[in-house]
């Protein structure tokens, strides 16, 4: 799989050249999304721009890889199976995706039962739609599963720690809100890429691709985009937490040099008179988070670069 080894920083510089011509921007939506995921009440515009770049680059890369996979199997559209195939390595994220797909099926089943018009519509459209996403996922994983561990995920009932942490964070965030603020928070939680289907498609420039994704694949892509933003916010919050040197922290001397450099650059901009919002996530946090995520640390890391995939580490899969 050939990839341009595009790290977000270089992508930022290159796409900023492109972005002047790019008319579609999700910055405002991203700001709301970041608020709903744990950022401050008014996330910084610069942070949102950076996040948008990161997500965009990663999704474009993902799409390209998916297109290659579907070409490999001779299909004419990018379908859910290709994306599931790309995600096969990371069990936890794959499980989260599967749960999302099942929830989508379940929700449409329930909502259909409530409104009689919906019921008729569904019957008229030739109902093979019940649990269609679940069927797709099950069939596909069945076909690629060699060791049985993928299929075991369907019965798996482990708690998803990342999701748990996100829920707890949301609960902590909302505990102190009054009902007006809470209403705003809920509104911003409803935002997603799947609601802006056509804008999302254009943003990813699907029109100019040879092999286009189908409906279910677009749903999954929207979900992956949202997951990327969520992961970025999670990691950035961790980074920010690390930056605060706690008294008595035995490892404060071991903070990496690049880390401190970013921290200092943030401070220097503040010294230059730019008002840095103390609560909001700074672009430096995001950059550090991506750097850490992509940085493979391990006992064999000096020797594995030849085998390592030459590409960015996908946050969503």
């Amino acid at each position: 799989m050939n990839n341009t080894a595009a790290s977000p920083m270089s992508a930022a510089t290159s796409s900023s050249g492109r972005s002047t011509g790019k008319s579609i921007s999700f910055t405002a939506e991203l700001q709301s999304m970041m608020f709903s995921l744990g950022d401050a009440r008014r996330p910084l515009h610069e942070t949102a721009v950076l996040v948008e770049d990161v997500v965009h680059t990663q999704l474009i890369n993902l799409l390209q890889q998916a297109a290659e996979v579907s070409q490999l199997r001779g299909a004419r559209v990018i379908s859910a199976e290709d994306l599931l195939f790309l995600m096969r390595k990371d069990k936890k994220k794959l499980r989260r995706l599967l749960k999302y797909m099942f929830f989508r099926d379940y929700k449409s089943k329930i909502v259909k039962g409530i409104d009689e018009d919906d019921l008729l519509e569904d019957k008229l459209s030739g109902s093979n739609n019940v649990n269609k996403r679940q069927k797709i996922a099950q069939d596909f994983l069945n076909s690629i599963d060699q060791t049985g561990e993928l299929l075991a995920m369907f019965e798996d009932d482990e708690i998803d720690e990342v999701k748990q942490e996100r829920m707890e964070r949301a609960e902590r965030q909302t505990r102190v809100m009054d009902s007006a603020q809470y209403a705003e928070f809920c509104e911003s939680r409803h935002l997603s890429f799947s609601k802006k289907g056509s804008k999302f498609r254009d943003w990813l420039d699907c029109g100019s691709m040879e092999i286009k994704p189908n409906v279910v694949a677009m749903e999954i892509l929207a979900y992956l985009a949202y997951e990327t933003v969520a992961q970025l916010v999670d990691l950035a919050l961790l980074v920010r937490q690390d930056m605060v040197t706690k008294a008595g922290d035995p490892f404060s001397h071991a903070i990496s040099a690049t880390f401190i450099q970013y921290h200092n650059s943030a401070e220097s901009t503040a010294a230059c008179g730019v008002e840095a919002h103390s609560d909001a996530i700074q672009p430096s946090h995001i950059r550090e988070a991506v750097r850490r995520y992509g940085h493979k640390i391990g006992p064999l890391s000096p020797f594995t670069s030849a085998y390592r995939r030459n590409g960015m580490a996908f946050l969503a899969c």
Partner: protein
Amino acid sequence: MASAPHTPPTQPQLHSRWLFPPFPTSQLPTVSPSPMEEETYLELYLDQCSTQDALTPSRSPLLSPAVPYDVDMLTSSNPETAFNPQLEEVTETYGSFSAVDLSLLPDELSQENKDQTVIRSKNEIEENCKNQSWQTRLPLSSRMDTGLALNSSSGSSSHSRLHPADGNSAQSSPEKPHSLPLASITPMTPMAPISECSGIVPQLQNIVSTVNLACKLDLKKIALHAKNAEYNPKRFAAVIMRIREPRTTALIFSSGKMVCTGAKSEEQSRLAARKYARVVQKLGFPARFLDFTIQNMVASCDVRFPISLEGLVLTHQQFSSYEPELFPGLIYRMVKPRIVLLIFVSGKVVLTGAKKRSDIYEAFENIYPILKGFKKA
């Protein structure tokens, strides 16, 4: 009504009933039902009195669901419309309600309050129930004159409708005040409504039912001759027929099976299904009306306070799913009864998946204290 201290009609009558309960351990909550139901509930209460007098005055009779006074009953037309047509149908026994009541009993309440709670919770569940199980306990005995003021004037019509053979109630009212066993009764002060009971009744929005007409049907013929019928065999293999009263839609299949949706009560659904069956009959098919079953009931209500869904999904993880990007409501899968509730931030609750009305009421009573715990200040 010459009952001395607390004379006049409807509501104060009920207060008087409190003050002179037939036995020391029973408490009656404040109620304000519409006059008609009031009488029926009255019947029930008196019925209970009669049975309880027969038993030793212990706690247990209170658990027998015979006191369906409405607590804070909202002036909804639903109960009345649901009530009347179903007078003839006795579908459920008491047993199920006792089970429900016990599960709602909070432990820390005092005995008094406990009784009230029991009664009140029963009321909540039963007030609109279609099962007229109390009718099995008719006729009322002569123990009517146990100290209750009857509003016979306003209730006589309903009396006659419900209990044609029972003239006791009307007769005993004048003499009632005089036979009050005052000495043995300690006057109780009116109780404030207990917070555990919601006082909210979910309103039915949609009922889906099926019935078997038990004969093969020629859908083309039906579509051609019936008014308000659609048939597009390429899209869907059934005739879609609609009637205006009750406003419903039916899917009629060539096998003779029919699905009826859109009714707002069980009776309406049955009535609509019969109307569709009659239409089919008039077209010349030997339609029957077999196995009418309610498949799904949907109800909705409003608890009228904002709810913290994040907190709810965290504490009730095994029952709830909440993905705000996909759907603004939290989906709560209650195990007993097996009902799915959609809970929204605004406080609106939609209940679905029920086959019986009592399931809906039970589910709502179960969820209400939970929701109150997550009330967003």
